[in-house]
């Protein structure tokens, strides 16, 4: 099986260590991976701001790049970017058949889970973690069971998640976070307060965007919390 890793912008620019965690995991699972050197952003920012024409160059490049790549899977470690590529690219190019591409694109959690790679990691941890369900992973990609089963398989770990009615967005929302700074921040604060009230210290999320936002809010409030992108945590537990 040949795998090509797509590195989302936030991970690439702000938290490259998470991409390295993924590579570590790939190595531990003996996954034959490569990375396209010329990859770009998936084009989601323009799309979600309402300017789909601005996302076309990104989508075009992505399609061209992977049309020459003979990998079996394009692993996308972000529910947001995966949804953009899988659901929205076909809408950007209505005349084109992109099934070959959308079939190859898999979100990191489902890739690790559905192929049972996580079982090879032999993971251990002591203590409780809070799992934040990233919105796009949950609501756009319908990925919920996968990360929870992976985390649940970690020996010694107590997995805590918010009940459905307490479960909310982290408040990021891309351009929303800048356009509606106060609202966005308050949503993030509420999320963190929930974590603090429940005396949790370690937070795992399925999307690096959420980590970035929650961490940014926590920094300003002086909360001493540890944030992990899910791959960071899986990697940590498998040492």
């Amino acid at each position, binding site marked *: 099986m040949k795998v090509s890793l797509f590195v989302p912008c936030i991970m*690439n620019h*702000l938290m490259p260590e998470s991409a*390295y965690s993924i590579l570590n995991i790939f190595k531990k699972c003996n996954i034959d991976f490569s990375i396209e050197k010329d990859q770009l952003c998936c084009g989601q920012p323009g799309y979600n701001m309402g300017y789909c024409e601005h996302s076309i160059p990104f989508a075009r490049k992505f399609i061209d790049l992977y049309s020459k790549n003979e990998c079996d899977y394009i692993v996308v470690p972000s529910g947001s970017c995966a949804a953009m590529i899988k659901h929205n690219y076909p809408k950007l190019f209505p005349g084109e058949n992109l099934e070959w591409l959308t079939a190859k694109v898999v979100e990191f959690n489902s890739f690790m889970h559905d192929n049972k790679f996580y079982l090879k990691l032999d993971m251990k941890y002591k203590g409780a973690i809070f799992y934040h369900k990233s919105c796009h992973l*949950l609501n756009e990609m319908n990925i919920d069971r996968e990360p929870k089963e992976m985390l649940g398989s970690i020996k010694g770990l107590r997995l805590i998640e918010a009940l459905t009615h307490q479960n909310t967005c982290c408040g990021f*929302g891309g351009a929303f976070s800048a356009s509606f700074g106060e609202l*966005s921040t*308050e949503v993030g604060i509420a999320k963190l307060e929930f974590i603090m009230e429940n005396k949790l210290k370690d937070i795992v999320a399925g999307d690096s965007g959420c980590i970035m936002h929650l961490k940014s809010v926590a920094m300003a409030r002086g909360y001493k919390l540890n944030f992990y992108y899910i791959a960071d945590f899986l990697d940590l537990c498998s040492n």
Partner: protein
Amino acid sequence: MALFLKDKNIININKNAKKALADKTLQANLKKATAEAVFKRNQAAAVSETFESSRDIAIAAREASISMLRKLSDEFVENCVKNNIKCFVFDDYESANAKITDLIKERGADFIVKSKSMLTEEIELNRHLKLNGIEAIETDLGEFIVSLAGEKPSHLTAPALHKSRREVARLFSEKLDMPYSEDPAQLSYFARRYLRDKFMSARVGLTGANFAVSDSGLIAVIENEANARLAINLPQTHIAVFGVEKIIRNLNDLPHFLNLLSKSATGQLLNAYTSIIGPPAEGKERFFIIVTKRRFEIAADPVFKEALRCIRCGACQNICPVFQRLSGHGYEFCYGGPIGTVLAPFFIGYQKCAELIDASTLCGFCKSICPMKINLPALILQHRFHYGADKKIKKPLFKHLKKLFSYLHSLIMSNNVLSRVIQPFARLYFKITAAVFGRNYIPRWSVFSKRDFIGMAPKTFMESYFTKNKKKSREKEGDKNGN
């Protein structure tokens, strides 16, 4: 392309948010009420064996009725006439309001008893009646509270959701001349005693309708307090006002809608009272006022017709992180929350909604909770597309800046050379802000020191990975050469 800085007409979500967030009581009320509502809804949906199947059946039923809305509307009116109900269909609010006013005046009434109807909020009936010297007395507790306070409903099914028990107690003791009490039973008793007199002496009762049944000329009114029953049955004249999209094909579909509405709105297995209203009793009269404004147009839109599936349960509002803080009033439109954002541009125009359509994280929880599975985030996004593409819409400066930002992002980040060139400058920028502000500062992001920014990595993953690999392969080559 007109360029202007600020437009007073644009609903200022940021300003409204600031005001709402500063009101700690409001925030506490909203947080408690919305969380409870979602909790109850989830419980009700989880224990129900029929919720999911009702969802599919109701969606199919609504899709069918939307696709033949005009025909159904004609058929409904015909069948109402057979039931001795007089129907009036209006496309504009003014005519609907004028007709209702005339009907009330002709009956010599100077007040009416009213049970909750969101459509009357849409057409602003109460204001219109007031101008004509007619008092509209809201009889449902939530609406009654809101109207006592001189406010508008802030939620589709819980109009006084934003108010705490204490606020209601204060309001009642001030406005109704009653002893101060925070006991909900006592409070509703006060309201009931006050309203009973009104019910007994009213000549005209006005209600909405949750569903209208085409093949039999009936309406269904769903409630928990039985005030609609009184408003329908006690006065001589009953007027029901509703939007044309409420029309469904037949009574067979109705139980599925009830199943969904009661569970999604209040988490009840079934609401307390369901009235199916047909022909008026001997000597009494009944009028249906049907408003079609923009509905046929939406029904004909291949994308937005989905929005007409809405049964106004309010679940999308309860679960929305923006609504939970902004409150219904912050939307400045009778329908708040995700469904309100979807409907607003049709009713008040895109220009006013410049900020509103952007005020969503697109988190998608509304889509998941909506009993009618309306893809609300996709429709909100569709509005953004339309707004961006329509040259006729007069846009304020912030929108042009947003577009410019999106354009620059596309221009720079879709170019391998440019995106690499800009890196050091971005890092330099953060170095400067760290020196000046003592932290990573981004305009519009770093609000009131409540939010920091994690900052950029010294090297992007791509840079570090490929230089490492280059080094590695060079080392390998070096090894080879050395050997």
